[in-house]
């Protein structure tokens, strides 16, 4: 039995009626077309919502703040998004999947003149494999999203580069209709799976902590 075949044990954490759809969709990996949908029509604020042209800021290695607008994914729990529970919003930037692979291709060929055909083939094979691994969502820090909005070849959410921004800017983005996608119900479970894999996966046994009192 494959690991994801027995879903009955997860009935305590996912409503039972959602289990078959989640099981089916997890079996469709690397097809992730089920992750995203148009912005939810009735509920304006949802964890995982994607916003375009959203301001972000990051500190560079010199401690200098670098600010720029990105398409972002909202990481806050839905329950923390109502007005009276939100002062800052935590977001992760999203970049274009194809542009990243092109960037990586150029990077691989940088300063490498006169490569033999077999060397070029090796680079291309490596790139193809790297792209496959990313599309499979097998890199813990990166969430691959299927094509949506302007990201016609998919997108990468950089979970290791989150930032906090005033909630006022979130409200502005909502008012200006800058939500571009919401997660589907089973897609949302996958988002939680991915966040768990990145932030809360089991440590290697050699990471031992003090036992405490």
């Amino acid at each position: 039995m494959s690991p994801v075949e027995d879903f009955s044990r997860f009935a305590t954490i996912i409503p039972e009626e959602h289990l078959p759809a989640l099981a089916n969709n997890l079996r469709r990996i690397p097809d992730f077309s089920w992750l995203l949908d148009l912005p939810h029509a009735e509920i304006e604020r949802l964890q995982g919502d994607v916003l375009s042209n959203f301001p972000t800021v990051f500190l560079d290695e010199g401690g200098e703040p670098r600010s720029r607008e990105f398409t972002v994914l909202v990481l806050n729990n839905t329950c923390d998004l109502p007005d009276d529970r939100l002062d800052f919003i935590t977001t992760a930037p999203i970049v274009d999947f194809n542009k990243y692979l092109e960037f990586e291709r150029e990077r691989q060929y940088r300063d490498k003149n006169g490569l033999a055909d077999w060397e070029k083939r090796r680079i291309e094979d490596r790139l193809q494999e790297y792209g496959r691994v990313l599309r499979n969502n097998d890199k813990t820090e990166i969430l691959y999203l299927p094509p949506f909005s302007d990201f016609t070849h998919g997108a990468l959410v950089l979970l290791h580069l989150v930032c906090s921004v005033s909630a006022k800017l979130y409200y502005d983005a909502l008012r200006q209709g800058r939500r571009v996608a919401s997660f589907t119900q089973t897609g949302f479970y996958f988002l939680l799976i991915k966040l768990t894999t990145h932030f809360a996966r089991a440590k290697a046994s050699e990471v031992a902590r003090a036992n405490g009192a």
Partner: protein
Amino acid sequence: MDAISTAVTLAWPLLFNPTQFGNGSGYRQSTATSVIYEGRESLPLEAMELEALSVEGHSAALDWMLLAKDALPNATPLTSEERSSINEFFWSHFK
């Protein structure tokens, strides 16, 4: 499903009132895991119910980690080379 799980699952709709948290929108989107913790924080439960939720919350969190591991069995962190690459690409957006 054991007795505690069944009880918590069945009792949940009766115990949880989403209007206690802001406008209550989107609660149907929460996982049972987060719902249990929120419920534990704010609901006037009897001691027995609190204990049941605590046990359930703990095992649910572990179950969730298990599910994550099962769903992505080959997940590994970026290598240092891959990290350099994606970070360089990220910073290239600021040029």
